[in-house]
């Protein structure tokens, strides 16, 4: 009985989600996305971009970055990352849709692509390897440091999509004028 009740509640909740109008990235954001993705060999075709899904996959990963002490924080973040897949869960619910394609050097760009390197989905997420230790002095003025965690377990949520064959992690790297994308890791995705 309890399961049926949960199911009913689920249906009600999900019905509401389905009704909500879905958001698209703005035109300017799409242009920037296309430019950056093309530069790393990923084709962006509007009709191949994934429509919002109502299920998603939670990928539990172990990330191992080189712990080189002679590199700057920015250089450390751009080093290749060894990724071990610890587990996958398929879950119900929608993923947030980002209208902007604004990048930041302390974030990661997640993209899923098809076998022929066409973009299906993207998301900018805080880089989980970056930990900020900040504290106020007597006047409230802050001091702090950025701690880079070379080894950690983390989970990323990606859409549940049979056409996506790879998840790619990119580090947005600033060259003083604009961002470029540095590929950190590629994670093969199993078909459902």
């Amino acid at each position, binding site marked *: 009985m309890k399961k049926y009740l949960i199911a009913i509640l689920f249906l009600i909740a999900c019905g509401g989600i389905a009704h909500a*109008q*879905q958001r698209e990235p703005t035109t300017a954001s799409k242009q920037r996305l296309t430019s950056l993705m093309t530069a790393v060999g990923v084709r962006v075709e509007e009709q191949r971009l994934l429509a919002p899904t109502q299920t998603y996959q939670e990928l539990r990963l172990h990330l191992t970055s080189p712990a080189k002490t002679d590199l700057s924080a920015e250089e450390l973040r751009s080093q290749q990352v060894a990724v071990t897949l610890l587990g996958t869960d398929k*879950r*119900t619910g929608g993923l947030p849709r980002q209208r*902007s*394609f604004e990048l*930041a050097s302390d974030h990661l760009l997640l993209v899923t692509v098809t076998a022929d390197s066409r973009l299906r989905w993207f998301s900018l997420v*805080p880089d989980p390897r970056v930990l900020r230790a900040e504290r106020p002095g007597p006047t409230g003025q802050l001091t702090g440091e950025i701690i880079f965690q070379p080894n950690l377990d983390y989970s990323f949520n990606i859409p549940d999509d049979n056409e996506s064959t790879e998840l790619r992690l990119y580090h947005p790297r600033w060259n003083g004028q604009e961002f470029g994308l540095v590929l950190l890791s590629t994670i093969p995705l199993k078909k459902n």
Partner: protein
Amino acid sequence: MTTHPRISSALFALLLFAGVSSLDHAETFETIVNNGPSSNRVDIAIMGDGYTASQMGKYQADVQQFVQAMFAQDPYREYQSYFNVHRIDVVSNQSGADHPERNSFVDTALDAAYNCNGTQRLICVNVSKALAVVGRSVSPAQSDIKLVIVNDPEYGGSGGAVAVASVHASAVEIILHELGHSFGLLGDEYGGSTCGGPDSAPNITLQTDRASIKWNYWIDSNTAIPTLTTTPGVPGLYDGAQYCDHGYYRPTYDSKMRTLDRPFEQINMEQLIKRIYNLVSPLESTSPTSSALTITRGQTQSFSVNKLVPFTHQLSVTWSLDGQAQNIADSFLLDTTSLTTGSHSIDVLLKDNTTSVRRDPDLLLEETHHWDVTIVAPSSTPPMLLTEVGSSRAIALDSVTLMRDPFSLLAAHNFSLDQRTRLALFATNADLLGDTLTAQVENGAQTIPLPVEYADKVPGYEITMIVVRLPDGLPSSGDVNVSITLRGLTSNKVLVGIKP
């Protein structure tokens, strides 16, 4: 794209029983701030650590206090209706957090510990456990921002993918600062000894040439560059940022990205508002939901939008028809009477004209919606007066007594001063669409007009009721042929009996 609710419900039912993770082991959660669908809101998921079952009341109070304090500060105050907040009730076996520096350890759900990485005030939690709690309790759309509040009064916290703060009085301030990084993509505006890094954040620059400063459109032309004033809230170019005392520049003398208990100030505020609009469209929903409509010329069609509502200002709504601006309101009534047949377009533009955002190259503060409208000519089928089955006798009623024919031309019981009888006739294919309908009687070679006093659709039916007055000149008895004409098309002729 919208999904039919029945289809989506069926889909979810299938998924539910097809082995998709259930919520069996989920922590309970309560949506304590609910402003709308998570698909168009910034959703904050708050977890507690170091709260035992008996301390859930304290946890709820701590979260409530945090939420109130957060939404008391701009831009979160002004845009509070753009946020939802979910409180996830995580129960720990013991209260507080680990303090390895004094060899004090407790058993908590998320393993919160001070002295993380050798920094006393740095609290780390087990991020995997925190994400697992979030994942089995709320959906990703309900956890755009993830926070952990640690039940320990000593100052501490950490920023990153999951922001952490103790219940110290500065908790809200440190979390707002950390959200400036993780949510707002802002950089640190304080100096220090670990100088360097990219000047990519919207509030950090290495440029000292006025024209090259990212936020130069905020800087008054009279403000010196670099800027030396210590007056708060004066946009300029201030030396010291990005953990460097010199060489990296910030936009105001002080802000929350430099010092707690300060406002964010203009440049950071602008950025945070744009980040809110990264996840929230100003346009909540539209009506009609279909973006392609076919309308018969002469009909009207109502269009409307449901928009987001900031705390103290309103979003503008502008409608246009075929590119020509129409009215400025939340709804628009399209009257197609004067439109040509063929394709037309209706567009609506919603825009947040807040003065807190001066530059929005990605047009995040606005949203448009477009409808393709095809106007078709009214039907070319002649109107048809309704008759009794198998007969050409009209279904016609005295408009006062509702009695059928035969009718007297005059009636004493008539409410009209002229005492003349009015008939109600009924017709199909007689939608006026703004045109004029006429009625007439044929009497041999003579055509006598019947004044039409009323004609309109019967609500809920594709039938038009027509009320005509019986004029002088009609035969005083016998049947007459009545017809109506609309848009040059004349109906069938129906019999109406007249009596002395």
